[in-house]
Each structure stands twice: as C-alpha cells, then as structure tokens.
C-alpha cells in the first residue's frame, strides 16, 4: 500500500532513506574494509582505504578459533530455542489477549514483571538451580534458561499483535462451527504471521548474541556457542588492541545474521501478502 504523492515529495522520501542507508552502509563498509587492514594501517590513517586486501586477519581467526564448530552448535541450539519459545508463547499470549478468565490481568502483569528484572541478578541462583538439576555444562539447561527469560518479552509483544485485530473474526469462525482451538489454528495464527515473525527475529537475534550466560554455564569447549567464541575474540583482541582482527570477527559474526535477516525479510513480505488477502 502506498500514498499517491507528488514527485518532489517522493524524491525527498527516497533521498532521506538513501542518505540514512548510506550512513549504515558506510559504517558497515568501514568495518569490512578495516578488517582487511593491518593494525599499523589502521593506526596511521583511520579513514583511508586498505593498501591491499589481505586476508591475514581472517586466517588468524580461523587458526585461533574453532568458529565452525561453535557455529554448528549455535545453528542448532538457537532455532530450536526460538521454535520452543514460539510454541510456548504464542498460545499463552493468545489466551492472555483473547480469552476471558479469572487472573488473566494478573498473569499478564506477572509475565511483564519479568521484563523488568535484570537477568544478571538471577545469575547465581540460576547457577545453583542448574547445578541441583545436573544441567550445568549442558545445552539443555542453557536452553531452558534462554526460553524462560525470553517468554516475557515474546508474550508481551504477541499480546500487542493479537490485541489489534477485530473480535468479529473470532465470532465468524465460531459461527462457522470451529472449536476455539480450530479457530486459533485457522484464523488467529495466519492473521498474526507478521507478529510471530517479528518475535522470531528478535528472539533469534537476542539468543544468537547472548554470551554471558553461555560463558558461565558451559565449560566444555565442544559445547560452546558462536556468541561466546565471538565474545572471547572481541575481549582478547580488545585487550591486545588487535582491532583489525576484532573487526574481522565482527564481520564473520554478522554474515550469518545478515543471511538470516535477508531470508526473513522475504518471509515478512510473504506475511504481508497473506494478511492483505485475508484482511
């Protein structure tokens, strides 16, 4: 859907977007180009193009970090977590938004309450809990923590999306003879695609980048997540002032997210079309 506006206004809109996007692209380009520099080049002329595109920084990372193994762990753990978060939060958000029962407001507030608590304050008790459950040093335990800490935000977000389409749709489904569960599956879910995708993206990025809990709860090197690898890389390169390798690491960490994001951006467009047809 778009407004019909005159040419000058259109040009202006494009200009603003292009300008802003240029700033974003330039900053990414700077990070990318710097990752091909040597530290000396960086220190001598921060804004200059690299003299040559050498891949030494990438080779260094490749030899120092087992990033491909970390990547495999992340690519497995993160989607499973995100799916489980959806499986738990979508139904919960649905009844919290579109059902009437006692304690509804209280439970909703109870979930929102969790968003106010800084996760770091739960660090020690979570450690003791996982230790008691023999879930330390296990990705299962870490996943439970990720899922639990993501539920608040996801339910809250979905609550906003579920709340914003008309009640009549539910009613129509009811008249068609759907059970509540069927109308949830057939009416509500398809209509909420954008909301669900938005929540998926945010959870994916959030868990993909989380490193503090992963660092503390997982000791075994074979179970390390990519975020922890990238964090270690950043910390050690920052400590030695090896900025160019740090930027190479940032680029490597960004690539899968950008690929994911481009893929999901397409899904969003799909979601839009579905919404438009049904709406």
């Amino acid at each position, binding site marked *: 859907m778009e407004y019909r506006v005159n040419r000058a206004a259109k040009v202006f809109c494009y200009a603003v977007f292009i300008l802003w996007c240029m700033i974003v692209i330039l900053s990414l380009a700077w990070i990318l180009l710097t990752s091909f520099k040597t530290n000396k080049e960086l220190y001598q002329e921060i804004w200059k193009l690299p003299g040559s595109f050498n891949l030494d920084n990438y080779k260094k990372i490749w030899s120092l970090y087992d990033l491909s193994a970390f990547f495999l762990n992340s690519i497995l753990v993160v989607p499973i977590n995100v799916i489980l978060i959806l499986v738990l939060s979508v139904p919960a958000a649905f009844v919290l938004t579109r059902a009437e029962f006692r304690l509804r407001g209280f439970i909703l507030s109870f979930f929102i309450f969790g968003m106010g608590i800084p996760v770091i304050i739960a660090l020690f008790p979570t450690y003791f809990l996982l230790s008691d459950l023999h879930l330390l040093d296990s990705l299962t335990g870490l996943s439970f923590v990720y899922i639990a800490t993501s539920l608040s935000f996801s339910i*809250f977000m979905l609550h906003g999306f579920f709340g914003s389409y*008309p009640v009549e749709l*539910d009613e129509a489904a009811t008249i068609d003879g759907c059970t509540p569960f069927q109308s949830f599956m057939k009416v509500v879910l398809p209509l909420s695609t954008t909301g669900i995708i938005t929540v998926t993206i945010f959870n994916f990025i959030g868990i993909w980048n989380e490193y503090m809990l992963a660092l503390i709860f997982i000791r075994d090197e074979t179970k390390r997540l990519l975020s922890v690898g990238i964090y270690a890389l950043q910390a050690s390169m920052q400590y030695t002032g090896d900025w160019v390798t740090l930027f190479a690491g940032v680029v490597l960490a960004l690539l899968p997210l950008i690929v994911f994001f481009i893929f999901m951006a397409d899904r969003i467009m799909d979601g839009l079309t579905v*919404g438009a047809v049904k709406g």
Partner: protein
Amino acid sequence: MSNSFKRNKKLALPFLLPSLVVYILFFIYPAVSGLFYSFFDYKGFTRDKTFVGISNFTEALSDKIFWGALLVNLKIMFFGGLFIFLLAFAFLIMYQCIAHFKSTFRALLFLPNIISPVAICILWGFVFNQNFGLLNNLLTSFGLEKLIVAWLAPEYIMVSLIFVIVWTYVGFYFVILVSGVSKIPDSVYESALLEGASPVQAFFKITIPMIWDVFTVAVVYWLISSLKMFELPFSFTGFKPRMEIWNIPIYIYMLGFGRNDAIYRIGYAAAIAVLLSIIVMIFVQISRKLMTRESIEY
C-alpha cells in the same frame, strides 16, 4: 466481552500452563531468590550471607551514584525515546510514500541492531574523536569550525551516546511499526485517499489509530529496554565505562560483578536491581494506563 472470549476460556489452562512452568522454574524462581539477596550482605564467594534487613535499600536511597545513574537512565529513556519515535514515525510516513526498494531500506535501517555493540562503539568513538574524527573533519570542510568540540568529553558525552543509541535502535522500532501498518487493509486507506486526504492526514486519521496497539507495545518495550540498557553504554567509553554514563544496570554490574576495581556487594547490587524492577514496573503501568483505549472499529 464477546462470546468468543468466553469460549476461549477452555484453552486458558492448557495454553498457559507450559509457559508458566518453564517461566517460573527457570526465571522467576532464580530471579526472585536473587532479588532476595537484597536483604543480605553477600559477597558471592561462599554461601554465607548476613541478614541486614532493609539497610541496603535505605543506603541506596541516599546514594548519590544511584541517583546519578537513575538520571542517566531517564535521560536515555526520554530523549532517546523522543528522537527514536519521531524518526520512526517520519520514516513510516515516507515509507508509505515510496514504491521501490522498500524491503531493502527496511533491512538497512534495521541492520545496526545486529552489529555487535562493541564494534559500534569503536566505530563511533573514532567518528567523534576530537583530533582525527570524521565528524570534526566534516564540520571543518563545511566551514563550521565553531561547532568543533570534543564530542566524548564529559559535557557532551550524553549527547553523543544518545545519538548513537538513536542511530542503532530506530530501525528496530521502525520495523515494529511497519509490521503494525502491514495488517491494515488497503481498502481502508483507499477510501480515505479517495476522499482527498493527504498522506499526513491519512497518517493521523488511519495509521496512528490502527497501529495504536503495536505502538503501545513499542513504547512499553522502549521504556523497559532503555531502563535496562547495558552493553552499548558499557562499551561506549572503551574497556571501562566512564562515570558520566553509568546507568543503573552498569552500576549493578560494577557493584556486584565488575572487574579491576570490583566491589563484590551482591546484596547491595540486588537491592538496586529491586529498585530498578520497581521503576520499570511503574513506567510500564503508567504508560499502559495512558495508552489503553477502546478497541478500534474497521
């Protein structure tokens, strides 16, 4: 309340129970026990805790650094939020005026959100540098030498920090608002535009009311995430945050878990975390009260 809402009641228990169990066991239970430390003197290296009643709380209320950190939080929340939402809405109107490259623009606007905050901070640290920074070079080439300052000096650092926060997060809120707009049926707009409404009128008469719920979600999410913001301000001044930009999460970290000159007062850190949670809840409740309205008619 509608009938379907009553009928959905059956679903409440099976739909809620799994979430509640996981949420309570793996988050609320440890978080609440963590917050309980606020009544103790606790260093964290043994399980020994000394009960101190509410003295951690009374101490926090007379702690200058706590109030300073809260002020930093509020500045980020208010000014950052103001600019983020003004910009996000401006982008939204413009987004509806263009036909091409929409998903590219949206993706690029969102992109800073997925770059590591450490990298963002190093980049902007170089941009804002007094001597070799890009910004001051730019000002010089436009003949605006008068405006040249040390952008990361104590007087200006909040301005720079808020700028970087806005730059980073505006795309996030823009994407949320776009996903709200996307579910408005085209027919609604078309009839309005046929009646001769300008984009700005259509924006206020249709877009805003139609995405109000999503907007509420975005505002509440901003309130919470701005009050809890940690990584970006933490990395903003190098390997150790300068005190001018200590916000409450940074202060909590410094008190309980920091390094180099760590304090190891987990009990006190927990007391401040309790206060932070209360502050967050107050803002969330106020904004939800202010922003709730009757459901919309299509």
